[in-house]
């Protein structure tokens, strides 16, 4: 193109359009182009589903509020990244899973763990660094696992889990089962090089992995637009022919519907798929972040207009599936579970000094 001298701008445009059209055709011939799929309509939830979603999301919210309190009181040290605001993502996705599927994520992981059914006591005790925490207190907030629940961590290095999640999917493929790997990462991690190495391999080998980009708009203190050339993360797989869907991550029904579609895509052998979850974290990046890079109004607007739990609560009440009192009772029960986990996490002893050298090759 650069060497030609087009007669006019219009001619250049036409010529350019023709060229790119023919290039597209050629590409199409060799392999299907990664497509952007319209998000499926939110699933109409039954009464039981709505109540379950409400219960499970509220457990995460109350748990995280308590974790924030314990941090403020000095029972949790170091780093603690709260999931408040993003609850619909993990709860909706968990509903699309079946026995044997794997979940892996980064450091904002408490919600994922509770969603997989890991015990609030075990998670909270890990946050406080106690011996009955999931990693004997030695992992802390960002580093926990549960083989039983199919949860593969809990990883503190931004983006580090994406390649691992791809490997989990490879293992499923190798074993010939129809399990899938849910590989979660954030909008910040989406710029790490290894994400694209993973995308290429997953597409090349048609691995059953759902890449879930939890786009909560801020990578620590840097907004998406200040760090990303392509801010539509559902398109990030385009050059690997990986289809993507942009999902309302604040609506648990939309997440569930997209989750079902993605799971079916993977289970039927079509390879990886990307779900970009448009979501929002209410709290700072970590407990030490005053979040001065955004306005209070912005946070308040999301809370009052799109809160994932309030949405469900409203539908439950509108449909008269539960009364205010019944929802209150549910909340009370959850608060009791969380209080119990907090008591446990404060009274459970610290690991024995002999634990310093366990589970390490020396």
């Amino acid at each position: 193109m650069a060497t030609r001298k087009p007669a006019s701008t219009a001619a250049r445009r036409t010529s350019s359009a023709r060229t790119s059209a023919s290039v597209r055709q050629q590409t199409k011939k060799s392999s299907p182009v990664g497509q952007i799929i319209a998000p499926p309509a939110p699933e109409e939830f039954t009464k039981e589903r709505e109540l379950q979603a409400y219960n499970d999301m509220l457990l995460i919210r109350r748990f995280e509020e308590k974790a924030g309190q314990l941090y403020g009181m000095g029972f949790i040290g170091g780093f603690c990244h709260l999931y408040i605001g993003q609850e619909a993502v993990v709860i909706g996705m968990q509903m699309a899973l079946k026995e044997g599927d794997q979940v892996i994520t980064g450091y904002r992981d408490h919600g994922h763990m509770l969603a997989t059914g890991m015990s609030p006591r075990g998670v909270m005790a890990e946050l406080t660094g106690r011996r009955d925490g999931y990693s004997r207190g030695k992992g802390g907030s960002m580093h926990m696992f549960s083989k039983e629940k199919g949860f593969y961590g809990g990883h503190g290095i931004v983006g580090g889990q994406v390649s691992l999640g791809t490997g989990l999917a490879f293992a499923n493929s190798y074993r010939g089962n129809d399990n899938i790997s849910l590989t979660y990462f954030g909008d910040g991690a989406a710029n790490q090089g290894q994400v694209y190495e993973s995308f290429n391999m997953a597409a090349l080998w048609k691995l059953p992995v759902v890449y879930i980009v939890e786009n909560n708009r801020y990578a620590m203190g840097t907004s998406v637009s200040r760090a990303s050339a392509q801010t539509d993360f559902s398109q990030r797989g385009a050059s690997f022919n990986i289809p993507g869907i942009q999902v309302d991550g604040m609506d648990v029904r939309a997440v569930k519907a997209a989750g079902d579609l993605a799971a079916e895509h993977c289970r039927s052998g079509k390879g990886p798929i990307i779900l970009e979850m448009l979501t929002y974290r209410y709290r700072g990046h970590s407990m030490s972040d005053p979040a001065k890079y955004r306005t209070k109004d912005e946070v308040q607007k999301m809370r009052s207009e799109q809160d994932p739990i309030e949405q469900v609560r409203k539908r439950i009440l509108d449909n008269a599936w539960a009364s205010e009192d019944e929802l209150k009772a549910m909340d009370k029960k959850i608060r009791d579970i969380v209080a119990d986990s907090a008591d446990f996490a404060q009274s459970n002893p610290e690991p024995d000094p002999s634990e310093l050298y366990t589970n390490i090759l020396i």
Partner: protein
Amino acid sequence: MPRMTMIEAIRSAMDVSMERDDDVVVFGEDVGYFGGVFRCTAGLQQKYGKTRCFDTPISELGIVGAAIGMAAYGLRPCIEIQFADYVYPAFDQIASEAARIRYRSNGQFTCPIVIRMPTGGGIFGGQTHSQSPEALFTHVSGLKVVVPSNPVDAKGLLIAAIEDPDPVIFLEPKRLYNGPFDGHHDKPVTPWSKHALGEVPEGHFTVPLGKAEVRRAGAELTVLAYGTMTYVSEAAAADTGIDAEIIDLKTLLPLDLETIVASVSKTGRCVIVHEATLTSGFGAELAALVQKHCFYHLEAPITRVTGWDTPYPHAQEWDYFPGPARVGRAMIETMEG
């Protein structure tokens, strides 16, 4: 003279360098608009604009790789890796490109970059926010490795590093950012504003790379330390009453062997302290050099006090951290041995 924390001193070093030389650029994750997670670059974007101090995506390999290209073209990037624990994706660029450009191009190009990163534990960061990876870098020929222990050195060494023609890994012990932490974690830390080494000249000055400093003169035993362990060793000397000569290495590569040899030849005993793990740690290199150069002066085996050979645990931080009690015990044993 103004008083500065280590954070302010590091910021001042970049400020002074940017003021003097348009080729100095500062970037990294959250470095521009947000001013860095530890606030080391706060205000620089406002002062020098977005083309000289800017945010990058979370992409360590890309950050370092781009900096090397810039440097080969004559710029002087001073970049931040948010935590030393995040540097590993960039290791290929550091070891294979930055460290070798001078050699590979027969001296036509050099790579004047500084890679700053907070290092070490003491803030309950656990295994991915507490590591001390200095030995990975000292193992690579072509790099310089600096670990300041106080505000005045941090500023002078950082300016020297920015002006240096070769790549410098600049490890900032994060536990020292606000005061000389000596490992007595149950006691309040003296702020830098009340410490002599918190007095930092306002303008341009350098502290030479490759020069160690005797922090405490002593006759009975030499302690080789750097970063946070300088203060832990001072506390251990005070607690045990041993007349130790404490050397703050400041630069690990190139190493000031002369100061080390002079001291150990005088005392005949040597304890090496670092927070990083023991096996193949920088202490092993120091021990080998000391036994080679001071063999006939040694009156006891050289001892190392280090982090244990495990990941940095979230719980048991103070069991892991080589505190004054462990350093003190090693000093006593070395006196007896």
